[in-house]
């Protein structure tokens, strides 16, 4: 099986029903996507497949059609994505465990809807749980990221 993750191509010998999350984490050592629920309920494992936000725990490796981007491919400390810049500016993270998934969902939202309304933000982010309760800052950071994108 072949997968493209963060523009890199990988040859893999895994059963097609293995969830993408575990291919990324245990086979490829890409640990930005997190295991939280294994059932598409928390969003901590969110990645992009051809730009769309997907729960990597709930799609099997064999089902993947398209190029995968994880938080590591979205931006890096030296080359931040606007969403990451906004997340830093607002100091969103507490434990931070859900934030990779939150940022991937937010980035997918903004790429399709650059100037989202409050209810569009809520709709997009509703599937991402944050047990620390950083939601108000996530909201502010999505707004800021949208502004930053406008300025670009």
């Amino acid at each position, binding site marked *: 099986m072949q997968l493209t993750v963060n523009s890199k191509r990988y040859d893999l010998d895994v059963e097609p029903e293995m969830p993408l999350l575990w291919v990324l984490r245990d086979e490829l050592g890409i640990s930005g996507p997190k295991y939280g629920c294994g059932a598409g309920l928390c969003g901590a494992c969110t990645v992009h497949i051809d730009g769309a936000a997907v729960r990597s725990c709930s799609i099997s490796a064999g089902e993947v059609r398209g190029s995968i981007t994880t938080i590591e491919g979205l931006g890096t400390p030296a080359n931040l994505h606007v969403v*990451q810049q906004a997340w830093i500016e607002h*100091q969103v993270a507490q434990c931070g465990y859900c934030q990779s998934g939150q940022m991937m969902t937010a980035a997918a939202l903004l790429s399709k809807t650059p100037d989202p309304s409050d209810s569009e933000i809520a709709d997009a982010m509703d599937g991402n749980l944050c047990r620390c309760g950083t939601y108000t800052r996530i909201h502010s950071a999505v707004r800021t990221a949208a502004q930053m994108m406008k300025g670009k």
Partner: protein
Amino acid sequence: MARLKTIARRTFLIGSAAIAGGVAFGYYRLRQDPPNPLLKDLKAGEAAITPYVRVDAKGVTLITPRADKGQGSYSIQAHLIAEELDVDPHKVRIDPGPPDTAYFNSRIMDDSLPFATIDEGIMARGARGGGEVLSRLLGMQITGGSSTVPDGYHKLRMAGAVARETLKEAAARRSGVSRSQLKTKDGQVILPDGKSVTYAELAIEAAQLAPVTDVALRSEQEWRYIGKKMRRIDIVAKSTGTQQYGIDIRPDRVVYATVRANPGIGGTIKRYDASSAEKMRGVKKIVPIKDGVGVIADNTWRAFQAAAAIKVEWNDPPYPADSAGMWKVLENSFSKDLLDSRLRNDGDVEKALAGSSKPIEAEYRTPYLAHAPLEPMNAVVLYTKERLDIWTGTQIPVFLQAHAAKLTQLPEEKIHVHAQPIGGSFGARLDDTYALQAIELAMAMEGVPVKMTWSREENMGHDYPRPIQLSRARGTVRDGMVESMSIDVAGQSMGASWFSRLQAPVPPGPDVSSVNGIWDQPFAIPNFRVTGYKAKEMVPVSPWRSVGASANGFHHASFLDELIHAAGADPMAELIRLCNHEPSKKILHTLRDVSAWKGSRIGDRRARGVALALSFGVPMAQVVEVSDTPQGIKIDKVYAVCDVGRILDPVNFEAQVRGGIIWALGHAMNCELTYENFAPVQTNFHLFEAMRFHQVPEIIVKGLELGGEVRGIGEPPVPPAAPALANAIFALTGKRVRELPLNKSVNFA
């Protein structure tokens, strides 16, 4: 000053070969406390200037022994040390250090004492001193109880100051300039002529000096960090997916594992059949463990699949099988022989009740609740006959070390706990069952690192929850005022359960946790009695964010609101009238003003509830505003006002208050653990959702700094939120909800 530089270089070259020890000094030396643990593993060229500061040729490392579960403890500990040491916390290394009794928490026992945290009487202070001695004796390096700041506020700054002055002394000896003429800035000692020498360059000489302990802490006017907006030290890592948690550790040759333990915690295993699991792809070994069985494979998902395929028969644990049976135990616990405490007994409650034609009676119930942090429990363990290495997030490193020594029969000094940043805890990592399971698996894989991860389902079922609690409340009102209140509480003892798992002595005296948040509340109700009944232990339980007050805040502040409404009084005005603690009163006045309180009804479809709860020494009052919508009740706004003495970091302060409120409201809305056949029905987040993004209200936070003792803020936001919400629901609908979660009684939008 050329001489200084020359000597610095030369000393370093000689020193790095010559020095292998160093000196222990600092705060603990002053107090005749345990020796500096950093000296044990000190390498050539390193100086452990206090248990909190290590300096070597590469620079400064700040030791932050309190676990960071997201509450920002690494950051605040680093800033407190840095405030005196004159380093930029973002430019130095931060390390949680080894588990050690030197890092005991002087304040961890405060919440287990039968004295209110605001009680400054001789007895209370004496008991707190006793708690500190006990913690020191037991070497209780524990993170919890909102104690990182109260415990470290003085100690960590002092550690920074001692290290700074000692580094200055080293520079003074080298340069011939007296220490008083030297200054420090950004990791360097500055000489009067403007030349500088880095701390790293002074490491060797500083290590050979006697500690400079005659230091005074800086005045507030000199502070650069405290009280100003801080930048979390982990914020870039946590915003780029590069933060490594315990679950992300992946050493060479690692194997992946999981476990299945008896779904009824405490029950043992009868037999298992792993014949089909053994044949599954990637499975390396099936290992029996305490009360369960583990699978070691080459991938976590394969381990999960194989564990699910094992056929297991369990022995039942020694408590009722379902929730109905568990509640029955509490219902039958209000008996003389189970009477455990009467920490408050003001006036004469019985007389007031007898004198009323219409006493008010109510029963309150709060459920078992899982901590359910998003990072499931996990540990990486490497076992050899010579030593054990454990990489995991833990709030109890010294206990884990002791438990691991017992399990492996290795001496404690051969047990190396490498504490990891934690993806949420809320109390879950005050236990170490998961790590001990991982050790059992690693012992079956000598020389190979084993990474054990609980599935979410395993995590929901084995999360030692918050205990269920049942209150029977009675009260009277007279002339528009609350006249009496009696609350009888039946609960299983959190302390008895948790301390026994820690293998630590259960604190003597009554089980205060089951009545905290009721008996210690700052209200002068003329007749006020609180009675605790100790039910027998059932599901093993543990501290959950804000501990006893998390449930009792609901019991107490809801019933008080019930009485106030029965009296026909305004809830805000009556709370203020009853309040007998000046800071709490100021909080309520401020809350009234900030929220522009004008009564609990706002038009037809909007209403407000108010509650105050004092926990961990922090009075916290909140107004919750709700509205009636076609989709159900919507929480629109929360106003929160509290006093923590002094706010060390306004950015994290606000984050903790908001997060605590969202935590409390979310669980109050829709979370509980109910039991069938000894196991919780709620196996994943679809049945344990808490608050989703679209439900989050606007939250207005105001922190007062009334100048009293400096307190922590992780837990105090939790207790008043649920009752404020329930009180608002009453004001909106006329329905008094006396059982959590609230969605059993009302619908939320």
